[in-house]
């Protein structure tokens, strides 16, 4: 076993990227617009909705973050990052023109080809909107390939709603059905309701030909999938974007293993069917 294998590029080494713009979304979440510095790398960087990158603040560390922009709008990459710990705090201290490191894209992403010609029901909670935002724009930019599209979105309170203006524009002009619910707060403002995201199911019709895309906090998957199954969505048509501890993003460090699957490579998007097979998936 010592014949030299073809030399490949070091998969742990990030590419250099520049922060172009940072927008405050909520008190703890910001949208980062990022550009790869190397023009060749920028050109070659393609991805699918639901894929993620390993983002580095050199000196602090590296974390997995979903790509929140859509491949249909190339050039800048967008990441929507909630401040929860060391690395995310460090990211929040950065300003435009600062440099970060990017590796990726990693993971499988949502099966957009499979979703074509079907109704798409998207369910997001909290910062889980980040990966499905990519899917939303992807669908919008290929609107005729998809049937009815609905977004059920739950946030903690009014001020925690990500992209309120964007959501409003989408709902009004783009033929999308959007329902937003808050854990607590003001219900007089359209389109907000108060309650759990699962309660929104009572307000919608789910057609036979529906594919679901879910990204909610870890504890919520069981409840959401229950509702979906009750609405007769098939197990293999429920796609969930899962969270696990990740260090390498490329299936080496072992930390994100769920049964025989690696969340970073075989996921982060899994079908409900996978979850049935792998008992500690959700």
């Amino acid at each position, binding site marked *: 076993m010592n014949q030299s294998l073809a030399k490949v590029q070091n998969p742990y080494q990030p590419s250099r990227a520049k922060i172009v713009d940072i927008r405050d979304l909520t008190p703890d979440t910001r949208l980062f617009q990022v550009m790869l510095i190397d023009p060749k790398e920028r050109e070659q960087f393609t991805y699918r909705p639901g894929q993620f990158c390993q983002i580095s603040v050199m000196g*602090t560390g590296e974390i997995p973050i979903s790509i929140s922009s859509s491949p249909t709008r190339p050039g800048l990459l967008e990441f929507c990052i909630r401040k929860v710990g*060391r690395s995310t705090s460090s990211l929040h201290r950065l300003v435009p023109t600062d440099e970060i490191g990017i590796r990726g894209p990693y993971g499988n992403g949502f099966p957009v080809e499979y979703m074509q010609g079907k109704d798409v029901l998207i369910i997001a909670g909290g910062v889980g909107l980040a990966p499905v935002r990519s899917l939303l724009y992807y669908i919008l930019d290929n609107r005729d390939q998809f049937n009815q599209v609905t977004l059920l979105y739950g946030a903690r309170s009014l001020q925690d709603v990500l992209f309120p203006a964007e959501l409003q524009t989408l709902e009004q002009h783009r033929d999308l059905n959007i329902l937003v619910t808050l854990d607590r707060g003001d219900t007089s403002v359209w389109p907000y309701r108060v309650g759990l995201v699962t309660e929104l199911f009572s307000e919608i019709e789910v057609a036979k030909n529906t594919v679901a895309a879910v990204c909610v906090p870890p504890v919520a998957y069981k409840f959401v999938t229950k509702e979906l199954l009750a609405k007769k969505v098939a197990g293999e048509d429920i796609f969930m974007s899962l969270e696990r501890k990740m260090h390498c993003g490329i299936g080496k460090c072992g930390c994100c293993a769920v049964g025989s699957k690696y969340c970073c490579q075989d996921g982060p998007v899994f079908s409900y069917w996978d979850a049935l097979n792998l008992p500690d998936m959700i």
Partner: protein
Amino acid sequence: MKAKPRIGIYGLTSCAGDQLVLVNCEDELLTILEAVDLRSFVMAHSDNPEGELDVAFVEGAVTQESDLETLKDVRSRAQILIAIGTCAVWGGIPYLSGMGTPLSDHVQVDYAIPGCPIEKTQLLKAIASLLRGDLPLSLPHPVCLECTIRENNCLLQAGEICCGPLTAGGCNARCPSLNRACFGCRGASHDPNYVSARQILEKHGFSVNEVRQRLALFSGKAYEKEGTQVG
């Protein structure tokens, strides 16, 4: 240029070992002093302007009213408060004698560097992270990780009262690497299984009392919480 972080170093009731570890960073001391705005270090410096602090390092346990006053005062002035040393983190030996309590019994502690005394390498890494504006990384492993990496035979398995599996790593398994059982001087690990350790040691022929005394020596508080459910 960013303003230098304002740092204060305080000692409550202690042996001063953790402050001394900083003074023992002979190669790095001058670099560190350049990089920070040292606002208080009574042990090493006369002119201490105090005031608002970005980071306060506090050593020692709270054993008397004046310790508590100092601690509360420092907490009210500091953005980040770091407990240094097992006395500050767990109460250490003063806790065992019923005379002292750890800092976290009284104020919020943002980060803990355990050790009796703290390890130079960990302190330097912590300072470096703080200079970046990050909280230091925490070490989630017990002494056994480093002990195994150094390929030491297991002293617990060989029948000695080794506290390695119950003790926070970071010392590079100092004692077992010198053929000496770990005393647990770095305080409890993230996930100490006192009950099992006790059963193992009793099987090796130690008395309940001996085992209790040893396991609770430096982190009595954790021992009381986790270790007293059985036996």
